[in-house]
């Protein structure tokens, strides 16, 4: 079982990395891209199943893996 955690900057937070990547893409001629957000991706390998791990993983996301002041996260579960 894997928990895949995707962390992205909150909408209200400046994302200079996203802006720099967007500029680079535009310079390279990739048009049609409106905005880019650069975040982090973590893959956690689990011993337990989703039911037993979900609340622990949520807590870990909130306390350590993301900073709720500046980031949002979502968890995707994979068998």
């Amino acid at each position: 079982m894997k928990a895949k955690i995707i962390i992205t900057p909150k909408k209200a937070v400046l994302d200079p990395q996203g802006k720099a990547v967007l500029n680079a893409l535009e310079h390279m001629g990739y048009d049609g891209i409106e905005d880019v957000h650069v975040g982090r991706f973590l893959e956690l390998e689990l011993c337990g199943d989703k039911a037993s791990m979900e609340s622990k993983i949520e807590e870990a996301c909130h306390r350590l893996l993301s900073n709720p002041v500046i980031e949002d996260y979502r968890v995707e579960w994979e068998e």
Partner: protein
Amino acid sequence: MTQPGDEAIQDLENRGGDLKQFTFGILQFPGSNSDQDCIDAVEVMGHKARYVWHKEESLGHLDAVLVPGGFSYGDYLRAGAIARFSPVMKAVSDFAAEGGLVLGICNGFQILCEAGLLPGALIRNRSLQFRSEFVHLSTRNTQTPFTSAIPESHLMRVPIAHGEGCYFADETTLEEIEANHQILWQYTTSEGNQEDHANPNGSVKHIAGVCNKHQNVAALMPHPERACQDIIGSKDGRWIFMSLIDHLNRVVSTE
């Protein structure tokens, strides 16, 4: 003009060292790099400093705690995110909850924000560049233990060295810290004006440092401990240490 701190040092020497000496604890994490600078700064001010290792669960007797700059735990995950869960930080939280003075510098600011001891967060500089240069700071509130000795309208010239020093807080938090006078220092030009080119990291409201609501925990991105002797370019950092020492003296005199 008397330089910041000269008077106190002279005073200490005149009394043959019998002036109350305070003990500062300097936290040491794997990756701290301003810890020795903090020790030097405290000793230059005529007081004592000792290291407190990140695995310590107790601080022992200390009059104030400095959380130094550096790259604790390699800044992995987010700057300060892992250091904040080290055993010593529990002791620092307890110390702060009892009213103890805690000053964070650079990475120390990031750690104290991650720990929830200060509002907001520090994110990547807007320029995406690591900036290492001198900046000017205006002091917004001179009625705190960290700023009381700073002369009214004096601009402090101090160095910065960081890649993630852009202060961010949401609108509600900003309104709250404005209302509670928690914004202590702001970046300005050498003339004292707040302009974008004088804001080295893109911080909201040009914020360089803040304190908590109870005004016993504060932090800033610039390095006052690297600005305590003429030989290294500035003595302005002494004003902050002077403020702390003045505050501790006032506490002692009322005990």
